[in-house]
């Protein structure tokens, strides 16, 4: 089983290698930039940021050019299949877009720091390792790599009390969840004798596995650890505080990208490590509970929020609940639904956060939703994009958000989970209330003074997301087909 390591066998790893090397090169460039300048010139940070986007683009090329069949390296620790490639494309796109959102903000608040793009790149490496993890050790290392970078990013405005608090809170709770994940992983290893998901799957389908308490407790702890990362209820406590405290571009990144990676990880662990409803461990009921609790708590808790970042935190909790509906159906359509949901969710989230970044008045960001009042008169284009995004989040046809929900609920109905689908629709209607409330504030309330001039990059991301949301119905097949192919590739 010893295969010689050379560059040719490492082709599927090129994207990760490119980003890791790129991050180090940018770190060197930043650290050894022409001496004398104690603080960065404002442009230097942006140059390193654009270079990071270039690195992401090169990695995207290697993902696209890499092998499309299933490749398993390092005895199963790294798996490159259709599922991983689909998620990697999403992660790279989302990371590049959220990097674009950050330039203006960082230039203003922490101009002396050039490390932000470097940390983001390293977090992306961690996330790509997460979606390719076929082994419990690789899974843990990947989660730690991305989390550690995210903790630092949350606290990047180190002189700001709220940002530091967010970073610390995220760190402490993240460490707790890592502990639970490790406890579960060690139990699983103890009872199956292997860290490889492929071997675990074999053992988990053998007779007696479904009633083996050790394996079940191990799986539950592993799921709890990952549920922290996707902030599913009841492991969501950190989300509103961290989202509110962290700098807005960082929050945009948190909400849009790492959640996707953690969700993909959960899908891979459950679908390939503990497959099949028949004979396997019944993890379906856990996912159904997480899903229901997230959808309803997200919908009801968001109603009382006035801070738009907190509101989006609860919205993201609810959205993860909807995505979990697909996973709960335990079939191919379910996984396909999850993937479609995640892609559309990413676009809607990035667009909304771009709009939140544009909410600036008198040189300072404003975060109260009432500040959006009368935006339709002061900035009609931004108001219209927000209208599209919030309608889409509420799941109103013919916008993309409707189809996201349609595919997961369809999968649930096919799997016989009628009650879950019905309750999901009810939660979605409750959620629509606060999205539409914001639209009402934008269009029908008395106008407040106009926001400051919107940064070009921010507007670009906002407009692209708005276009995606409205044009998805015109050509849904590329995304839907790619998601189906990705879901099929998970079958052993």
């Amino acid at each position, binding site marked *: 089983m*010893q295969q010689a*390591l050379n560059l040719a066998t490492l082709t599927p*790893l090129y994207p990760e290698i490119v980003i*890791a090397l790129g991050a*180090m090169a940018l*770190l060197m460039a930043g650290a050894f930039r022409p001496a004398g300048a*104690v*603080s960065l010139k404002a442009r230097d940070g942006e140059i390193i940021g654009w270079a990071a986007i270039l690195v992401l683009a090169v990695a995207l090329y290697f993902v696209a050019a890499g092998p499309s069949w299933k490749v398993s*390296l*390092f*005895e199963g*620790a*790294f798996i490159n299949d259709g599922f991983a490639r689909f998620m990697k494309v999403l992660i790279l796109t989302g990371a590049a877009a959220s990097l674009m959102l950050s330039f203006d903000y960082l230039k203003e608040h922490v101009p*002396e*720091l050039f*490390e932000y793009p*470097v*940390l983001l790149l*390293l977090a992306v*490496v*961690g996330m790509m*390792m997460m979606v390719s993890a076929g082994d419990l*050790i*690789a899974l843990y*290392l*990947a989660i*730690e*790599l991305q989390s*550690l*970078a995210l*903790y*630092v990013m949350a*606290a*990047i405005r*180190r002189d700001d009390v709220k940002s530091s608090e967010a*970073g610390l809170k995220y760190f402490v709770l993240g460490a707790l969840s890592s502990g639970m994940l490790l406890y579960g992983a060690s*139990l699983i290893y*103890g*009872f*199956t*004798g*292997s860290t490889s998901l492929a*071997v675990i799957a074999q*053992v988990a389908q*053998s007779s*007696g*596995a479904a009633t*083996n*308490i*050790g*394996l079940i*407790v191990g799986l539950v702890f592993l799921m709890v650890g990952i549920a922290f990362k996707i902030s599913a209820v009841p492991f969501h406590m950190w989300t509103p505080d961290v989202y509110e405290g962290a700098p807005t571009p960082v929050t945009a990144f948190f909400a849009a990208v790492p959640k996707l990676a953690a969700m993909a990880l959960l899908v891979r662990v459950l679908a390939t490590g503990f497959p099949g409803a028949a004979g396997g461990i019944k993890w379906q009921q856990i996912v159904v509970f997480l899903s229901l609790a997230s959808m309803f708590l997200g919908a009801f808790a968001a109603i009382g929020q006035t801070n738009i970042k907190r509101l989006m935190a609860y919205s993201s909790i609810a959205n993860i609940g909807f995505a979990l509906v697909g996973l709960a159906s335990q079939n191919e359509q379910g996984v396909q639904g999850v993937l479609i949901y995640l892609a559309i969710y990413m676009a809607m989230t990035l667009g909304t956060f771009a709009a939140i970044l544009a909410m600036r008045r008198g040189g300072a960001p404003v975060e109260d939703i009432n500040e959006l009042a009368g935006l339709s008169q002061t900035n009609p284009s931004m108001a219209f994009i927000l209208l599209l995004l919030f309608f889409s989040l509420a799941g109103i046809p013919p916008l993309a958000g409707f189809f996201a929900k349609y595919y997961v609920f369809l999968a649930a109905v096919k799997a016989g989970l009628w009650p879950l689908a019905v309750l999901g629709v009810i939660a979605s209607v409750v959620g629509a209330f606060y999205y539409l409330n914001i639209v009402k504030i934008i269009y029908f309330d008395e106008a407040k003074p106009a926001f400051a001039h919107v940064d070009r990059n921010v507007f670009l991301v906002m407009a692209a997301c708005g276009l995606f949301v409205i044009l998805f119905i015109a050509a849904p097949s590329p995304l839907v087909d790619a998601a189906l192919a990705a879901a099929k590739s998970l079958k052993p």
Partner: protein
Amino acid sequence: MTLTVAFFYLFAVLLVASAAMVIIAKNPVHAVLFLILTFFNAAGLFILLGAEFLAMLLVIVYVGAVAVLFLFVVMMLDVDFAELKAGFIKNAPVGLLVGGIVLAELVALFVGRGLDVGLGHKLAAAVPADVANTKALGQLIYTKYAYLFQGSGLILLVAMIGAIVLTHRGARPGVKRQSVAAQVARNPKTAMSVEKVPSGGYTIPEKKAAPALAQPKAEAAE
């Protein structure tokens, strides 16, 4: 064989006892010292298992570096342990509840099926008999686990960047820094000056005044 068993129980009992003392000890310095004893006993257990490399690593890294660092922190930082204890008592019920549940789970695991784990397939022997422990580790780390090894390296890199980003404040005025280039560029002419020390004098001459004979300050003062 019996000797091995005897040593196993010696190390194991000492390990558990000193680990308990780490938690019980009132004086934090004592706690750290007990932690070091725990590490030594764990190293002993590793040697009994034939994992001499891990044993050495434990002694060198954990005892030599980590524990000493702990000791430094405990001694340097002014931590108010009485205050920490107050919080401990306040939160004790919750901790007991969670700890109790986890303990009950563990007990249930073993009561349910004895000490036989049952499901797992047979594990291979840790190390082939004819390969030295360290060599076997090296062969694995750089082949099968190369990917994970590099991943761990990236984690450490992130940790370093994070520590610098969050604490380093850039160059502050008035801080003397080492400049390697300036040090290398020095030559005897700029680095040294030859001073004529007056013989028989008893004071150091001022920099500019360098007459052959001493012009003692003491006299001037008088």
